[in-house]
């Protein structure tokens, strides 16, 4: 697979693991999204209060992010995935190369997840669209997983989605 899992660091959030893979290899098989999300979810969930359910919930969210990168990414460069923890929150930092001009699309899509009408936009999307757009997937994370999303464009043309998932708590995995 050409992938590696290494330790990394970040302030405030405790680093759990880092995964990277050549984008060309990642894009060669759709099932990489499922396999990577399931495997990494199990790895980071073992010391949560309910490891089995935490893993299921985390995998569900992570898979959607990986599918976004699969559908929007390009073959040049690497996909990088770092996972951090602070208390009840898991932070996913997902970097992947994307076509020129796409950064603006993600900037706007991420911005919409933080607006007060995020839920209305999400309901409108699932009511009327035949298939989910990348924008509605990000809204899904905000609405159904209480995720907080932001975008880092420092490594253009790659973009980095930073997603905080407060999965361990009442209403989530409790």
């Amino acid at each position, binding site marked *: 697979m050409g992938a590696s899992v290494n330790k990394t660091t970040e302030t405030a959030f405790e680093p759990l693991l880092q995964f990277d893979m050549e984008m060309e290899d990642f894009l060669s098989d759709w099932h990489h999204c*499922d396999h990577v999300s399931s495997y990494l979810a199990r790895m980071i969930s073992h010391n949560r*209060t309910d490891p089995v*359910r935490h893993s*299921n*919930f985390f995998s569900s*969210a992570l898979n959607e992010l990986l*599918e976004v990168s699969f559908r929007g990414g390009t073959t040049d460069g690497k996909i990088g995935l770092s996972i951090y923890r602070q208390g009840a929150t898991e932070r996913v930092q997902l970097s992947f190369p994307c076509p020129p001009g796409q950064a603006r699309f993600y900037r706007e899509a991420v911005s919409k997840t933080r607006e007060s009408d995020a839920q209305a936009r999400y309901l409108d999307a699932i009511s009327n669209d035949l298939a989910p757009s990348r924008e509605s997937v990000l809204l899904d994370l905000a609405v159904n997983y209480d995720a907080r999303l932001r975008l880092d464009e420092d490594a253009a043309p790659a973009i980095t989605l930073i997603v905080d998932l407060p999965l361990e708590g009442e209403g989530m995995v409790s």
Partner: protein
Amino acid sequence: MIAAGLPQRFKVGFDPNSQIFSLAGTIRPRSIDEIAESIHALREAIDAVRGVLYIDVKRLIQMNNTAFQAFIRVALDACRERSDLRLVIVTSSVVSWTTRMFRHLSTIEPQISVEVYDSMFYPGQDYFEDTSFIPILRAQTKLTWRHERTILPRHGMRPGIAVADICCGIGDFAVLAQKEFQPARIVALDHSKPSLAYARTVAAEFGVTGIEYTYGDASEMLLEDNQFDFVACRHSLQIFNQPELLLKELYRIVKPGGRVYITNEKNSHCLGEPRAQSIQWTYNELARLLSHFEMDVELGPKSRRYLADAGFDDILVESFMVTNLDGDPQDFADIIAGWEKMFAAMAARHGEAPEFIDRFRQGFRDHIFAALHPKGYAGWPIWAASGRKPL
């Protein structure tokens, strides 16, 4: 049916008699085309029903947005076309994200409602989840463990293996098994959140780490196939109304070559001297009473048949008798006192006459008398059985 292109990971089914369309497993297609057959099956199910269609997603382990939106598109369109149609989506309290995703549909479409399936669907289970019963459960495990610690290795328990304790209750068996046998991994599952909270507290207080306590429905587990070398399910088949369903799940999660270990009772064989007749009468009546709550506390000797019917081979069955001579007789007496309280309440709920309840209680008191009598003997027989999942 198994969905094309995703063998063994995703199943859809339709039961026209109960008007239930079910989705189970992991559904993460790249495009709608990959699940076209299943989408078509949902359309056909909707066309075939009058009134209510239940869409059962209790065993849905994963579903991506592509699949979610494709299925709900069919559901929403059907409601817009047919004013007579009602859709009830049944999610599980175990898989939190399904409820959070599907709940929006009732906001979008009034003909759709979402019901969350949880432990209240188990008839009579609340009696066993009453926290006042915890000391009794602990005393029971204390006495049975004296026997089981020597029995378990004959049924495949050994150090370094992956173990699951399904229907773990307050988790004391998992703690004892971990201390005694040092498994590489141990998962303990129960559908009672208060019991699991108690289990986690006790484990933390005693510095026991590494037991993965998880909330789940034993008949619809999130655990993956073929994961464990040894799966225990103690005193639980007998209080579920569908033991076959539970065994099917135990079979699914144990590895080929691994073993499923079950313990069950035959309550009518509880015994004591003196006052044998009174004791015998009460336990015969207890078995009859619990059958009204869809519990078979006579299941113990049927273990061999249940294991064989579930597909296991190399079946081992043995029985042991917990008695008042196993340590302090007061421990045995305390267990019976707990049973008296709990089962008398169940008799009252069933509408038994006060005279019956008085006599019923007397049998338990006589059992305690026998247990504490200096020359008395009191026994509680248990059947331990295991079967191997064929390679």
